[in-house]
């Protein structure tokens, strides 16, 4: 985007941009996360939303508990196969464009639970954009993941529907 505020061109100034760049700029600065918290990582995620770490500084504080109003799914916590179908259905209910953060060791690869009930990484059934390791990850790590999502939206964008 180019900002032009030359007095010769009308005083108030204007910006030149493309529709894609403008839409993606809006998208990355107003992410509405769907918190899918199933275990202790969700506590750290709540910390990210709360005042000390304050995800609203990145425009992403409006946690939507309805998938219809969300475009970023933060899967934080152990996902069992019984929960996996729920998780997938909620993801399917989110409108496009949408992104997924896998928060914590369990969502990235099953964590310590190499067992009959636990999915060994949510990428078995979801397209994950950013993986955050840690057990649980520090809030800074989740903020970094959100910033990486923002970078990804800026670079790759998404089709204008």
């Amino acid at each position, binding site marked *: 985007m180019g900002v032009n505020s030359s007095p010769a061109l009308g005083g108030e100034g204007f910006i030149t941009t493309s529709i894609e760049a403008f839409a993606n700029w809006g998208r990355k600065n107003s992410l509405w996360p769907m918190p899918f918290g199933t275990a202790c990582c969700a506590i750290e995620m709540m910390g990210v939303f709360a005042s000390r770490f304050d995800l609203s500084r990145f425009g992403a504080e409006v946690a939507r508990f309805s998938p219809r109003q969300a475009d970023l799914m933060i899967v934080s916590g152990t996902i*069992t*196969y*019984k929960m*996996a*179908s729920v998780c*997938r*259905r909620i993801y399917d209910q989110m409108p496009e464009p949408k992104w997924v953060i896998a928060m914590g060791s369990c969502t990235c690869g099953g964590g310590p639970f*190499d*067992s*009959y*009930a636990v999915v*060994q990484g949510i990428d078995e*059934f979801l397209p994950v954009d950013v993986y955050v390791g840690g057990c649980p990850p520090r809030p800074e790590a989740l903020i970094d993941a959100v910033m990486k999502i923002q970078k990804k939206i800026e670079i790759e964008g998404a089709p204008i529907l």
Partner: protein
Amino acid sequence: MSSDPAPAEDFLTPMLDSLKSEFPDSVLDVKEFRGETTLIITKDSIREIFAFLKDRFDFTFLADLTAVDYLEVKSPRYEVVYHLHRFGPGCEENVRIRIKTDVSEDDLRIDSLTPIWIGADWLEREVYDMFGIEFTGHPDLRRILMPEDYEPHPLRKDFDVRDREASKRSFEKELEEGPE
């Protein structure tokens, strides 16, 4: 505190004597270990024994109900374990006993305790889910933790805990069919 408290030991000995004289063929053994009392009983008369303990000796609380798989350790293979609690007038007079009964691999049925303690409902469902022991007379014996179409019983010792195939099948079926 009442002026004349009945300590737990004074309660336990007459209770065990009374139980043994009432059910001489069903009480197989009584074990004491570090202040814990364990009774071994036959599975045929568990309902009578538990009803007797509840009605006569005030064991109003079924604290836990679980099972153990003794594969290659002993036969019969399974043991169902009950923990009963009696609330005494004072906390010193509380009594807790453990009751075990064998269930063989060939006949996995055992009487449900839901007519005596309705709280046995979910505990028995969990044991059914994890070990495949069938509680006859249970009002609603379905799996409680694993998906309903899951086939193995995961806490059996001959089940590989890393075997995710059955879970994956249930998951894929659930995805295809959707909720209900």
